[in-house]
């Protein structure tokens, strides 16, 4: 089971002081958050991708490469990589390069993006969102596995004898998750390839998450990648903790009340009841997140959104400390308990490399016949 942090990279004023961090401060803050994640023993740091203010995460591989150079264990990921508006050729190149530089500590989460104008800004049409995600990923998937690719599609210039460089480190491409909140087509896509499926449920009720994960698991089995319980599932989460739960509520409420996305809407109490947001003691967070698998089955990756709504960096780092010291070690134990044997871990580079080697050995043993 992997635990980590994902950050949208929004620049939001701190509502308690009215102060807005500069882009430079926010970029450095995100680096500090990633380094803290490794320091406290978390497994993953994932950066969002946006191409409009108030966000600053337009160039994820630059940022993740910088973090890779300063970390040793942390898996660097995205939340999400825009498979619709980025050129799949450039994604293949950028992330293979990052994979080399990070020694394999890289995976990606594909997403369509939720900002309408980004499509026309990048020469695309939002009405083609699903079709773009399907076609672009089909190309990306080939570019990482084949050389001299001939390809023709609807959305980009055809390719003749194109080889994307660098080739994936040691052979296996970065593992891919597909993120979608509402589109069963994307769960279907993840299932078809045997890739991971991430439901970013932080603003959604569990009944919806359960439905999306359910369809992915069912189709994963349908496409022959293993049992439904062997599908690779990730969930989002959102927490704010203090030793005394009342202190957590008191400190977080001014941020909650005016936060982007849900601010000025439901009360903190209603929203915490309806979504995974948990504001309280570390023990309350443990109980809430230890129970997630009762709804979606045993899963592989839990990411937390910690640095939004204008929370100051010092508070965010403090929260990640609590997460790493008091919450995640207990959750690791809780979720390992009664975990059925067939439930796999989230694929890492080492696992994919070993898997490839064992398949190669079977290939050689069969005298060159593919098993």
């Amino acid at each position: 089971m992997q635990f980590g942090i994902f950050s949208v990279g929004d620049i939001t004023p701190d509502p308690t002081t009215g102060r807005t961090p500069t882009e430079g401060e926010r970029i450095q803050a995100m680096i500090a958050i990633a380094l803290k994640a490794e320091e406290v023993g978390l497994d993953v740091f994932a950066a969002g991708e946006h191409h409009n203010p108030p966000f600053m995460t337009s160039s994820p591989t630059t940022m993740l490469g910088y973090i890779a150079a300063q970390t040793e264990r942390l898996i660097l990921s995205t939340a999400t990589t825009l498979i619709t508006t980025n050129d799949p050729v450039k994604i293949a190149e950028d992330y293979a390069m990052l994979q080399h530089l990070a020694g394999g500590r890289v995976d990606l989460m594909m997403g369509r993006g939720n900002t309408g104008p980004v499509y026309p800004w990048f020469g695309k049409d939002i009405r083609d969102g699903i079709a773009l995600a399907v076609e672009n990923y089909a190309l990306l998937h080939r570019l990482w596995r084949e050389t001299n690719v001939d390809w023709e599609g609807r959305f980009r210039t055809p390719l003749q004898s194109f080889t994307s460089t660098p080739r994936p480190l040691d052979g296996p491409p970065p593992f891919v998750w597909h993120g979608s909140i509402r589109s069963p087509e994307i769960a279907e896509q993840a299932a078809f390839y045997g890739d991971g499926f991430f439901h970013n449920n932080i603003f959604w009720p569990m009944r919806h998450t359960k439905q999306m994960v359910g369809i992915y698991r069912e189709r994963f089995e349908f496409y022959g990648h293993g049992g439904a319980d062997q599908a690779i599932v990730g969930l989002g989460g959102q927490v704010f903790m203090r030793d005394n739960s009342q202190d957590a509520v008191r400190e977080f409420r001014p941020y909650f009340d005016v936060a982007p996305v849900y601010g000025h809407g439901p009360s903190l109490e209603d929203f915490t009841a309806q979504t995974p947001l948990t504001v309280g003691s570390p023990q309350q967070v443990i109980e809430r997140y230890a129970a997630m698998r009762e709804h979606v089955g045993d899963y592989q990756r839990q990411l937390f959104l910690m640095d939004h709504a204008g929370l100051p960096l010092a508070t965010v780092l403090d929260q990640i400390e609590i997460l790493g010291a008091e919450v995640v070690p207990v959750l690791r134990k809780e979720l390992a308990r009664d975990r059925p044997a067939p439930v796999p871990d989230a694929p890492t580079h080492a696992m994919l490399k070993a898997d490839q080697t064992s398949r190669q050995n079977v290939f050689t043993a069969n005298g060159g016949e593919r098993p």
Partner: protein
Amino acid sequence: MTTRSLVIVSAGLSEPSSTRRLADRLTAATTAALRDLDGRVTTEVIELRAHAHDLTDHLLTGFAGESLQQAKDAIAAADGVIAVTPIFSASYSGLFKTFFDVLDDGAIEGTPVLMGATAGTARHSLALEHALRPLFSYLKAVVAPSAVFAASEDWGADGLGARIDRAGRGFAALVAAHEPTHAADPFADPTPFAQLLRSG
């Protein structure tokens, strides 16, 4: 005997409201006519006032709270919808529109709808035709030709009862003839990936 489910949406704000009163009269007329035609009727009233906060939250968060979700499920499963709103500023009320704004795509596609509206003066009566009817046409509902408008003065005059009965009978015939067609459930029946690839 066939059992038909009617869902009644009332956007009246006061309690009791003349909007709810009109909705109840339309329901009674429809129910009586349906029983004369072919069968049993169940009715469920959605008072939008009770969902006002949930509707605003839905606009802001993108998902429905538990009781609003039940209302959305009920209307999507209905064999017929009676929708009644007060007329504010020459159109349906904002609360009424918000409810129809948050329905899922196709929720009332093909569903027979009987429209009703109330206002302080008869000069608003055509709002039914220039505001409500296009809304339901856009949602691809089957809108009954006769709608009922009740101004304050109508409640003390002859004629309203007869108009309600006529609208109820016409609507009942639509509901009775209606073959339930519910929107395909993408979760129960996902588009196979090969088809997604081809449609690219």
